[in-house]
């Protein structure tokens, strides 16, 4: 018995929603970063599911691009977070109030 494709789509939508919710409500930079990663993985799952239903290889290759970019993004993001942490001893965005936008 195979799981229908729509289940995967619902799962990825839920994962994406959790990522968005977490990003908008959590105040720690690290958790926000993890939420972005969760959103990108939801994207990957969506691409793979559609690639399978459409019998099209292109959707699966996009996933590799997304994974590489996500890794690069995390590397840079953690670097910036560490730089800020060394100066301010905090990773909470609420305490980053040097400027009020």
């Amino acid at each position, binding site marked *: 018995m195979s799981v229908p494709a729509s289940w995967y*789509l619902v799962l990825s939508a839920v994962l*994406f929603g959790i*990522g968005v919710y977490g*990003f908008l409500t959590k105040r720690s*930079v690290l958790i*926000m*970063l993890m939420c*972005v990663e969760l*959103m*990108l993985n*939801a*994207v990957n799952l*969506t*691409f793979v*599911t*559609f690639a399978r*239903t*459409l019998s*099209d290889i*292109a*959707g699966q*290759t*996009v996933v590799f*691009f*997304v994974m590489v*970019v996500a890794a*690069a*993004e995390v590397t*840079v*993001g953690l*670097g*910036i*977070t560490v*730089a*800020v942490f060394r*100066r*301010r001893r905090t990773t909470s*965005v609420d305490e*980053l109030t*040097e*400027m009020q*936008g």
Partner: protein
Amino acid sequence: MTLPSINYLALAPFLVMSGTALVLLIATSLTPTRIPRRVASTVAVSAAGASLLLTVIQGWQIARHGAQLTAAHSVVMDGFSALATASISSSLIFALLIAHDWEGRERFVGAEYQMLALLATSGAVLMTEANDLAVVFLGLEILSIALYVIIAFNRRRVKSQESSLKYFLLGGFAAAVFMYGAALVYGATGSTNLSTISYFLSANVLVHPALLWAGGGLMMLAFAFKTQAVPFHFWSPDVYEGAPTPVTGFHASIVWGGAFAAAIRVMISGLGTQSDTWRPIIWGLIVLSTVVGALFAITQVNAKRLLAYSSVTHSGFIWLGVWAASPRGVADSLFYILTYAPTVLGSFAIVALVGGVGDSDHYLKKYRGLARRNPWIGGSLALLLLSQLGVPLTVGFDGKFAVLSASLDAGNVTASVVAMLAAAVAAFAYLRWVGSLFAEGDPDVAPLVVPWASRVVIASSVIVVLVFGIWPAPLTHLAQHATLFFQP
């Protein structure tokens, strides 16, 4: 297995920039001493100049053989990409020259800044010629990831790192939203290729368009974020204020060039058949951006924050041309970007000089009497601000006139009128600044010392503003030939 054929001329500006960045990176790690600032700037400016020359060759090829698709139809070389790349490359030369003086003032050595600037610009160049949602994403991220680092470049300033972190979090979020939108569009149309999407949508009627609409809406959200359109502009004053001033200029010219080019490609080349669906959203972006940008610009006391809100207003104007979704609207939006880039870079060259060591003080009161102390610098800033305001005989007027007439032609009367009224409101912010330049200043303040690189940037931007302000025909002519490869 056969590899897709690649037209290297189409990718040449991208390859020159990213290749030079990699050479600088390797040279930095291999040399025992740090690379002198002059060498790094020379190498980077030559790369930007080479890519500018390559766009001329591209333009000549396109005129002879027409636009070309390459690399498995994922990259396109057309008049639009060639002109946008030319605009981005010349902006990079300006931005590097501003940064050259800035690095001297801040006593930074090494080639890291030039390397990151080249990398970020190569991403913007890739975005202008993307014909596939995956390539748009790649360009966007090459641009953004280098930009996050370059915004945090000033280690001695807390604001620099703080603004970088804010931009990084929101930028990562926007990129993920864009990609989810791309995934949904892929599911609805069966391809990530913009031309294939467009052919599919013109040949088929979707029974359930919700998937496509949701995907297009999410991608549009990401573009609105990158182009600082209200309500996704909230990060821009902080990032403009916090980033080192040369990077702020970089942002308002190069990042915009890439982001608007990609937005135009996706919305018009890819989803142009759905324009009736996305037009109301862009209409909202136009009205909100022009009005909110103008209202907030008036209340600012910080020069960089004022320019941030001013660019929010300009973003609304460029979207007017996108709304028209006609060849003429595309040409006029491109013309606006083409002329706004040197104007804003010249302004930021002067803001960087006035800000002084450590980007310490950007308050407007510091500009009081600038035109009396430094008549040339003060006069140039006044002219550049008047151009942003849209005074006739400056290039800003021609840009505003072009997008407004394109949008009126397409029947968008309300948004055009609102944008014009908002521009009139924003005039107050610019005129107050210009007025204070000529006011009686503090006699104890010493005149600015202007290094040669900044002189070149300011003089060239003033020449562009005046010459093309009085005689815009060559530029409009170029922009009209810079058509998209495919437009439904």
